[in-house]
């Protein structure tokens, strides 16, 4: 993932993914979020309270090399990923809430991510390129805004963009497998199990803690499932993009290890969790006549 072509491709993919996220939104969604700030707070706490702390714990408890640790921290501090919306959809969660949490965490992330990164990096004595991250985050808001505009302009263009964005988020996994995995095959074979534990645990534990947190706040199970997926699923492409644009050469490859592994494994983790959630939902769904077509 060092070539200029791959960097451009990565930037383009992030752009389209964010465009798709914007296209799923209307200004009304923001208004609603402000109307129910409680839900918003839960999202922010889950995303920037629970996840970074989970990352901190993993780094502290696991024997990880410096470069891997930086990857874990960046990954843990990322906003929610758009794939969470897809899994929320399939797990019959609250799609509106999921979209909203993804968006608010992306928007508030511009300010919160650098602050949190600096705090934890200082505590862990890690080097983090702060400015670069801020710029990338601000730039991200541009496609989100364009996406919203597209939807407003034409619902069809909006819907198509949304589908493309979601599809691309999954296609991204393929991109990593083709582009990153072969080049780092040796690394994947030789790295310690701790790296894998961190990459898989971040998502899995994130979901479990997120669910417990939401249930403790007495959220409806449907919303709790949404919060769980939203907490555990981070914006992997964004972490990889930030690293690709910040570091160079072999250095980037090892920083990228956890975000890349995370992105691969989160699909499996989310699928399993979605299957569990779907089962839980079947009983609770509002029954409509079979044929009110």
């Amino acid at each position, binding site marked *: 993932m060092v070539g200029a072509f791959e960097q451009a491709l990565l930037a383009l993919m992030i752009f389209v993914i964010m465009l798709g996220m914007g296209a799923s939104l209307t200004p009304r969604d923001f208004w609603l979020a402000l109307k129910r700030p409680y839900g918003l707070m839960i999202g922010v706490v889950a995303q920037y309270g629970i996840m970074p702390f989970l990352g901190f714990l993993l780094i502290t408890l696991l024997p990880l090399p410096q470069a891997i640790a930086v990857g874990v921290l960046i990954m843990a501090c990322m906003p929610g990923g758009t794939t969470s919306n897809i899994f929320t959809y399939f797990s019959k969660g609250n799609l509106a809430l999921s979209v909203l949490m993804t968006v608010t965490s992306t928007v508030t992330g511009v300010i919160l991510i650098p602050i949190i990164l600096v705090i934890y990096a200082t505590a862990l004595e890690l080097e983090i390129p702060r400015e670069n991250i801020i710029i990338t985050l601000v730039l991200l808001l541009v496609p989100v805004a364009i996406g919203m505009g597209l939807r407003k302009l034409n619902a069809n263009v909006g819907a198509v963009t949304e589908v493309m964005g979601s599809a691309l988020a999954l296609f991204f996994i393929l991109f990593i497998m083709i582009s990153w995995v072969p080049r780092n095959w040796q690394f994947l074979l030789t790295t310690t199990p701790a790296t894998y534990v961190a990459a898989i645990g971040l998502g899995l534990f994130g979901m479990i803690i997120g669910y417990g947190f939401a249930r403790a706040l007495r959220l409806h199970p449907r919303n709790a499932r949404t919060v769980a997926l939203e907490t555990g699923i981070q914006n992997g492409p964004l972490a990889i993009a930030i690293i690709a644009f910040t570091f160079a050469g072999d250095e980037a490859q090892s920083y990228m290890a956890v975000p890349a592994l995370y992105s691969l494994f989160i699909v499996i983790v989310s699928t399993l969790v979605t299957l569990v959630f779907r089962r839980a939902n079947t009983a609770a769904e509002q029954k409509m*006549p079979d044929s009110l077509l």
Partner: protein
Amino acid sequence: MEHPERPWTAFYRAGARAEIAAPAYRNLPDLIRSVAETYGRAPAFTCVLPNGMNGTLTFAQVDEMSDALAAYLREVAGLKQGDRVAVQMPNCLSFPVAAFGVLKAGCVLVNVNPLYTADEMARQFADSEPHALIIVDMFADKIPAATAGHPIPNIIVTRVAEFLPAMPRGIVGLVQKYWDRSVAPIQLAHVRLPDALAAGRAHVAEGRVEVDGYHQGVTGDDVAVLQYTGGTTGVSKGAMLTHANLILNMEQTMELIEGVEKGKEIALTALPLYHIFAFTVNLLGFYWLGARNILIPNPRPLTNLKRAFENYRITWMSGVNTLFNGLMNEVWFQDTPPRHLKFASAGGMALQTSVAQRWEAMTGRPVLQGYGLTETSPVLTFNPLGKTREGSIGVPVPSTEIACLGADGTPVPQGEPGELAARGPQIMAGYWKRPDETAKVMLGDWFLTGDIGVMDPDGYVRIVDRKKDMVVVSGFNVYPNEVEDVLAAHPGVLECAVIGVPDEGTGEAVKAYVVKSDPGLTAEALRSYCKEHLTGYKVPKRVEFRDELPKSNVGKILRKDLRAEALAQMAAE
């Protein structure tokens, strides 16, 4: 405007006609053409899919496309005036094109429920003997079995995303084919709707045919639609609705509607257009108003309606009790109830008082309940805006008379319950090929509805119940609707149905089937709640909790299914 013998005309909006002597158009094709000429390039129909993908046809486009289909049916398929054409599809842009095209060809439209099983289709085809079938691809796999005994010579296949822009159409096509696997390859000889239109268009363009000529000889008294009904009694029969029936009923209903602006409304059509309520009120009525009709192919789950509510300023919607109740249980709907809604109209089944009250509290706008049957095109009564009477189906629409008849067929004293009979220009011409069945429901020119109702002195009608659903407990009449209304108002009850079951002590006893919204609800608690609101003999003797209730395709709860179950259950004991 007051009519001496019809005191209810005093409730009509100012300027409304109490009497509509003759239809405003010679036949439905004339109406379709005339409206299209007025609104031309304004959007007429917009099909909205769950993810917001959509397609729109203008009045002029629908007019041109239905011309092309009419030309295809007459010139290529070789149909004649009066031939039946079955149309079987959910709400989509093809529906108005197909329905209008069939009518313009001078043919008779046979609406078929797309979810019918092959057996049900076969029975309806055997009875109506259609010369052509226009069907959506998702259900085309049932054609071979359904037409085994009665082959249909012309089959035209369309799809839900028909006439949407290429990109969304392609995506929906891929999803249906590979993800849902809801579209199977079609084995029979058929033509695709766009190809049929192209073929028909060629005839029109070359000036060889004059589409208006096809229906030159069609008068108001000719049958326009065969609308099948009777699913709730067993024998399915086709009500022959004439051009005049439908035009007049649409006019009768619109005459009482207040506060709408022609050419400016955006109406939500979530109910299926193959059902008579949506057919007359939404397809014909909204079209005639120049409204933009938002067509929802499948409102289930109800989140499928979310994008439609977000992306369009819905000013008017029609629904049934189940739809209104369901919407109000959706979080997104509670958060952002439609802001531009003027009112909603309800029909198809009894609107529960508690649902009507909650709807008005949530949206700030009333649900106006109307009443009618397939045989009456369908509207007989409607609640005028601002003058709704709780629990009432409103007053008779213009040119319509309602009487309450006793068992001997003579009117009962004012204020007493009797079988509702109706007289007016919207009463069907009879059942297709079933004079015996027609004779059972007609008393002179009065149509017997089979519903028990009471009329206030000033003309407001309340439905007490279906005649055959009435429960007789120790000689007292219990009307299930009344008991259901009480049950539905309990906060722990999501849905309910009440029937009569044989009882050794009282002849019949009241039994309630309940879907809980509060898992902690017990039968005892529910019974003691009923005792506070109902006389002793009306309180359900038995309460059974269910996960869901059997429903018809428009969401009507099927008491007959519950009755059959209860009887089988008791026989087994």
